[in-house]
């Protein structure tokens, strides 16, 4: 790959890491919701962002970056150590392996793909937690969280495009990007 492409890739990775850090940082600001919990749980912005980028430009969100960001989230939020990170890594690997032509079908299939994958990932997490006898939260709050995240996904895609300049690739470009670590 020529140096300009490499530079663009580095910039894209920096953009992804920066956006992820911003999301993690924003949710750590202590606010009125810290203690009481709001009526609706906030969306899982990190998952939506990672999905949108992994589908469009897999080279911007390589596995090491996704793993690092998700592990950091696990550590900071007191979640079960590493489980959600492992599930996210597998899920985004599936996304990365998608045929690029998938994107040309339009936005609705992509949205459905996102909704299905997130549901699958959450159910897998819950199943593992159940087997490991980890106490869990109510299923209803998980579902609320899920629907809020699915609803916010188009906005995440739009802001990815506007702020990070992550656009769709043409299929032949995609092949060269697809297999990078």
């Amino acid at each position, binding site marked *: 790959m020529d140096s300009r492409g490499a530079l663009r890739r580095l910039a894209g990775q920096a953009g992804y890491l920066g956006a992820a850090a911003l999301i993690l*940082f924003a*949710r*750590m*600001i*202590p*606010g*009125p*919701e*810290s*203690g*009481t*919990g709001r009526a609706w*749980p*906030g969306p899982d912005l990190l998952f939506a962002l990672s999905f949108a980028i992994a589908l469009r430009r897999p080279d911007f969100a390589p*596995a090491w970056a996704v*793993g690092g960001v998700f*592990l*950091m989230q696990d*550590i*900071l*939020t*007191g*979640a*079960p*150590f*590493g*489980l959600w*990170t*492992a599930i996210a*890594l*597998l899920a985004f*690997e599936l996304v990365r392996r998608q045929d690029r032509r998938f994107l040309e079908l339009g936005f609705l299939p992509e949205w459905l793909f996102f909704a299905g994958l997130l549901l699958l990932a959450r159910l897998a997490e819950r199943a*593992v937690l159940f087997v*490991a006898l*980890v*106490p869990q*939260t*109510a299923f209803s*709050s*998980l579902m609320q*969280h899920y629907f809020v995240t699915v609803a916010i996904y188009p906005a995440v895609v739009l802001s990815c495009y506007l702020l990070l300049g992550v656009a769709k690739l043409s299929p*032949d470009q995609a*092949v*060269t990007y697809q*297999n*990078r*670590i």
Partner: protein
Amino acid sequence: MARERPSDQDFARPLRRILLGIAVLVLLGLFVLWRIDNPRVERLRAAVVDRILPSFDWALVPAASLTRMLRDFRSYAKLYEQNQELRRELQRLKGWREAALQLEQKNAALLELNKVRVSPRLTWVTGRVLADSGSPFRKSVLLNVGRRDGVVDGWAVTDGLGLVGRLAGVGNSTSRVILLTDSSSRIPVTIQPSGQRAILAGTNGPFPALEFLEDRETISPGDRVVSSGDGRLFPPEILVGHVVRARGGGLLVRPAADFARLQFLRVLRTVPVEQPPPPEPVPAAGADPAAAGPDAPPPASEPTASAPAGGSDG
């Protein structure tokens, strides 16, 4: 067609898969380790947070005060209503103040008669809330006190008025507080006029629930809920909140602590087993199991704390 690939990628692909598989296995191993040997991995987590958080301190503090300012600014819109409400509340509180003063005098007189001594070692460390480390499913905050301030896992945290939660995960300069609204929080409590014991279980919502009640009939909304001190984790008699009745008929607790404004929190320095002094002389060092930790101050303060108590009693 640009379908043919450079040949090196035929090798890169399986390699990449192996690396990913290893990463996933390591992460799952970490999860299993977390499940089996929780304290050690939680210590690792505390250490990582300890490293990261102070470097974000410069940004987190202004961001927090900015959001607080915005919220306060929004409340200007309702200034008039608030004013009226405050006036009414002031009127009510004047009545309470009078009652409290009388009770205080009465209490002082009774204490004098009784020679009751409030635990002299019930001191506290005050910390600032650095960050909200919760998620939609976890309610916890990070404080800027840690091992260097002598705090120990499990100590109670209040906001000066009511119980907020307990420490879970202590780093060198930061520590995590699991709030009593968190769904994994279980705190033994007493409901005051009836004296019933119960467990206060967090629900992730604003009002934790009362569980394991023996007799629901004797409890009415508005009853005071205080920590019972069972299990000797928390000191007894810390105000937790007041009973409210949920729409479904269950009993919840409205916390006395203001969870919407967690800014400065007190970590109660509780030394385990503070029993009334036994009549026969027992060596003070032997009575103390010294489970509080390796920190020097509690054992050092032991003789000075018990000496005045013994001296003035006799």
